[in-house]
């Protein structure tokens, strides 16, 4: 509809790219270029990441001693609430789709832009308005309900800025919906000639699956927040039993969105990993169609497991059993992906560049995160570990060990394409190792703390949990340094980094083979015509070796 047509495209000087096309503020704030919008997202999610990280630093400092001595209990409760809200709604959900998805989905399918470029810009504005409203709620007193907003605490008892925060999250949800819609339509309607569904990179498949969840799940979050606001502001009894409501109903509605939301955060990360594994082993992804369909399987099954957050909340025992078995089923497609990625390395030509270091970190941490998910899906064991630090550790292994590692890996991999500059490789590897070590030191002790019985969201705790908490806080300081390093050298590289070639990794894919570095405003000099599958590394081999191309083991 609003996609720019070739006739309106300005003609470029040979070296013109999307960054140099126009330098004015106006050209950035009113841009409809998906790449510039991706950069706007990169700036905003980075800001929110360090804000959420600041809250985490304060939490770990408080927890370094058993007594609640650094901040008041009320402040502590606000800190963990805002850490969760900022990291989930304003960093993890928009990070990979907003930055890398926006920038690369159109290029990877050979399109000039998203299907709805102006809607794309609107998504970013809606996200920023939601973010600023929530930020306003934070600086005018904060909120202390936990990111889960459980009623009736949030609707009746909490004295903090619940309504304003909820409005911020409510608004941001629309940004997700619009982004999801845009990606779905783009993938259906904007593929270049020859780009069939099964020639699409797995990154695009993962974003397609994510978008389906965004479009179907996010409205339920909006409804839940609206109901919560109605009860809080107008005392209409929905969740509070004193007003005739049902508190467990809130949990059903909340987790109906928020469990699939976990897959909104991890599926794009899986898409990134698929690209990186292929590029750095110079091989087609092992079992391409299994990896592609496992994303869709996760998207579908992910909607049927919300009740595993409620085994102890008073839902029926039989509902618990059904949710438990479905939760075990949703683990299988993730396991299939991990095995396929590992198998891709077999007989590959593996290069341990910085992005690949993040991939290896991801595979280790995501595997531990996924396996500990089985502990929580298991009814008899969940009774003990539910609402303890075991859950905190599991969740961070998936979200930080999984999604953030993949995000950083992806940023490093595509940085040369996005900005035309190379970052210092040695520092890149060092920071990947520092992050891996810091992460494990921070979160592994929390599994032990959880089984010991330390409940989550505790401002003070018994002395005997002290040692493991000190280890965790020490790890967090290493992790913090690990995150500041890439921030520093990536910024440095923008000015001082070596010029990047069009395809520094020798990777396959339209973004490397056909799009100049950095890409021009409409991505390609001419619409590409696709004649090969994704990851057609075998085509570069000498004839005698490429004959084995379709070999099955």
């Amino acid at each position, binding site marked *: 509809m609003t996609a720019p047509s070739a006739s309106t495209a300005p003609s470029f000087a040979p070296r013109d790219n999307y960054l140099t096309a126009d330098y004015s503020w106006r050209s950035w704030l009113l841009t409809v270029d998906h790449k510039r919008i991706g950069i706007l997202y990169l700036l905003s999610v980075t800001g929110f990441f360090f804000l959420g990280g600041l809250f985490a630093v304060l939490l770990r400092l408080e927890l370094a001693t058993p007594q609640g001595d650094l901040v008041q*209990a009320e402040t502590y*409760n606000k800190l963990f609430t805002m850490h969760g809200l900022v990291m989930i709604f304003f960093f993890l959900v928009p990070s990979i789709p907003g930055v890398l998805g926006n920038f690369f989905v159109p290029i990877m399918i050979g399109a000039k832009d998203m299907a709805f470029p102006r809607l794309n810009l609107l998504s970013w504005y809606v996200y920023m308005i939601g973010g600023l409203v929530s930020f306003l709620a934070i600086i005018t007193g904060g909120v202390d309900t*936990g990111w889960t907003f*459980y009623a*009736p605490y949030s609707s*009746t008892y909490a004295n903090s800025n619940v309504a304003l925060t909820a409005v911020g999250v409510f608004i941001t949800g629309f940004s997700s919906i619009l982004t999801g819609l845009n990606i779905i339509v783009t993938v259906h309607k904007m593929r270049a000639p020859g780009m069939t569904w099964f020639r699409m990179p797995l990154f695009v498949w993962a974003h397609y699956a994510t978008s389906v969840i965004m479009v179907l799940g996010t409205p339920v979050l909006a409804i839940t927040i609206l109901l919560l606001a109605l009860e809080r502001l107008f005392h209409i009894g929905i969740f509070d*039993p004193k007003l*005739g409501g049902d*508190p467990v109903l809130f949990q059903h509605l909340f987790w109906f969105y928020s469990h699939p939301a976990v897959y909104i955060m991890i599926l794009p990360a899986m898409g990134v990993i698929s690209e990186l594994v292929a590029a750095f*082993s*110079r091989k*087609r992804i092992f079992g391409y169609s*299994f990896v592609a369909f496992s994303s869709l399987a996760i998207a579908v099954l992910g909607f049927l497991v919300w009740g595993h957050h409620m085994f*102890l909340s*008073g839902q029926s*025992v039989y509902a*618990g059993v059904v949710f438990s*078995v479905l939760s*075990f*089923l949703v683990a*299988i497609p993730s*396991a299939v992906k991990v*095995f396929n990625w590992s198998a891709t390395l*077999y007989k*590959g*030509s593996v*290069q*341990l560049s910085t992005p690949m270091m993040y991939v*290896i970190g991801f595979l*280790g941490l995501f595997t531990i995160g996924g*396996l500990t998910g*089985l502990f929580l899906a298991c*009814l*008899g*064991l*969940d*009774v003990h570990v*539910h609402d*303890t630090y075991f859950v905190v550790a599991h969740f961070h292994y998936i979200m930080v060990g999984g999604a953030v590692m993949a995000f950083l890996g992806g940023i490093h991999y595509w940085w040369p394409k996005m900005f035309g500059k190379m970052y210092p490789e040695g520092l890149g590897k060092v920071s990947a190792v520092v992050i891996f070590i810091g992460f494990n030191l921070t979160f*592994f*002790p929390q*599994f*032990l703390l959880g*089984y*010991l*019985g330390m*409940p989550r*969201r*505790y401002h*003070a*705790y*018994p002395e*005997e949990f002290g*040692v493991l908490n000190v*280890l965790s806080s020490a790890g967090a300081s290493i992790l913090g340094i690990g995150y500041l390093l890439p921030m520093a050298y990536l910024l440095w590289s923008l000015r001082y980094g070596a010029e990047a070639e069009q395809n520094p990794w020798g990777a396959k894919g339209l973004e490397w083979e056909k799009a100049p570095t950095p890409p021009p405003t409409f991505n390609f000099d001419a619409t590409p015509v696709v004649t090969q599958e994704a990851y057609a590394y*075998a085509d570069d081999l000498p004839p005698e*070796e490429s004959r*084995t*191309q379709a070999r099955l*083991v």
Partner: protein
Amino acid sequence: MSPLSGFFALAVQTYPGSGNAPLFPPSASTISGEVDALYWFLIGVSVFFSALICALVIGFSVRFRRRPGVHATPIEGSMALELLWTVVPLGIAMVIFIWGAKVYFRTVKVPSNAMQIDITGKQWMWKAQHPTGQREINDLHVPVGVPIKLRMISEDVIHSYFIPAFRIKRDVVPGRYSSAWFEATEPGEYHLFCAEYCGTKHSQMIGRVYALDPVEYQRWLSGTVAGETPKQAGEKLFASLRCDTCHNAQSGARGPDLAGLWGSEVELRSGGSVRFDADYVRESILNPAAKIVKGYEPLMPSYSGQVSEEQMLALIAYLESLSAPQGAKDRP
């Protein structure tokens, strides 16, 4: 768990003054051994698969590292392998599921001879009342070797009753009763935590559980002011709230006679039936018109705001006793 856990064990041992820094919680109830067995099995599965993935990823990365003149061998995939790594994890997952469900059913199914203790949670304290009338706040004294059923309700927000040493936890929700049970096996003093975030002093909604030898428990009971038993208190309330004006055995009474109804299915005026239990009694006191018994008119006024959660538990204990076989509920 991983090579890491060895490092942590070492760190914990060498940390100054770490005489009291356990890595594993005490195991002190009939169910805790079963939960631990499940835990160790899952750790075994996790170690196996983590080690497998680590070995594959690191092994392949080294063995097939990029070398000049050596190309990757193109491999499409393998249906046999895909089936293998779908079916084997699925089989293991189903074993864990069934085993976990079995343990869960044990934690849910309360033994019929359990002794009942009433728990009310409120911001930020736990109140307990024993069948013999003793009350305590934040502490809980229980005899070992006796199944204990907790009947729990919250006066305000959602809380969760968590005794790590017994491996039990259950949300304590406003507006409905929840229950949990355990049987302590080891005398000792254990943590009691609120596990569901409930506001400012959530981390101070904690207490101690004292598992006592039965003789010690009797001594504790007799050393504490007993007060009224919940049943006696309920009987007095039943009279002082004038419940007996309508709920009596006379023919033509305006409300159903409540003796003998406990635990039975009651037919409703609107059709269908409801189980006469704690939740139904509570609902009928607070919102009488919700479910009227067949043959009666909706005449009863609401007692909402007049009956506290603890009085409610007393009324329920009294009604329960009206239907109990003689002697069964009057255990000391």
